């Protein structure tokens, strides 16, 4: 068209040969960054979850500790004593008298030997 300005004599630039490789490298690194961001975004959740896990483990250990204390009593005490101990408060008669009687008899037997 006559009205147009003729730019055909102006230099036409061509992209540098390395430019496409740089574009590819930037695209690759942005993919890696996306993966990193994915983990960063979820780090708070991970942190909260790890606190929960730690709290759960602490509670579990405490519970087991109490349980192991019971086991220790069981190991140390005789079956009858443990049975009496477990039945404490279950009945109106705590059989304290029976225990005393048993102990008294045991004492007397030892004394007579």
């Amino acid at each position, binding site marked *: 068209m*006559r*009205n*147009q*300005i*003729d*730019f*055909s*004599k*102006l*230099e*036409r*630039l*061509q*992209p*540098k040969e390395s*430019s*496409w490789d*740089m*574009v*590819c490298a*930037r*695209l690759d690194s*942005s993919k890696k960054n996306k993966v990193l961001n994915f983990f960063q975004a979820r780090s708070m959740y991970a942190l909260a979850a790890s606190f929960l896990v730690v709290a759960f483990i602490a509670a579990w250990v405490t519970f087991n500790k109490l349980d192991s204390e019971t086991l220790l009593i069981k190991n140390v005490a005789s079956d009858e004593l443990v049975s009496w101990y477990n039945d404490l408060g279950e009945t109106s008669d705590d059989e304290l008298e029976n225990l005393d009687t048993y102990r008294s008899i045991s004492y007397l037997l030892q004394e007579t030997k």
Partner: protein
Amino acid sequence: MHQNCEMNEKVIITKIQQGSREALGMLWKSHSSKVLNLAFRMLKNRNEAEDTLMDIFVSVPGKIQSFRGESALGTWLFRLTVNECLMKLRTKKRHAELEDGHIDTLVNSAIGSKHEEQLDYDPELLEFGLSKLPAETRSMLWLKDAEDLSVKDLSEIYNMPEGTIKARLSRARTQVRCYLQENQNYA
């Protein structure tokens, strides 16, 4: 042929949307030079133009996800380029480059509205004449007269009515011709 090109373009768009590096490479081969030249005309700096070209192609896989194919891929790329360059110019606070108001006053004192015969201008002088225009108008004139885009395409790229585009182009041509004539007389 045109239908074939359109079909190829649709395939390229779909493949890029699916993350194909090969399709992006094809787009690079067909459009990188045009994008670079447009960026160079706007920024007037080879290295900045090269950076802009890379920025645009890095952003293409993300931005093409929302591309609905209403315009040609080339037109869409030119729009990205113009916006990117304008943003860079704004960042650099080259506001003078963006102001378009002073053209009218220059045109009024110029050679008039009558179009001149196409003269054999010195390319360097033409480059200077072009650089006198504000960045946006410069890019508009480049796309119309060098890349042979239609006014309709320009209207899509710059989001302006076709009448405004025509008026701007006319003023820009007059200004460039005025500059060329004045300086050729001195040379």
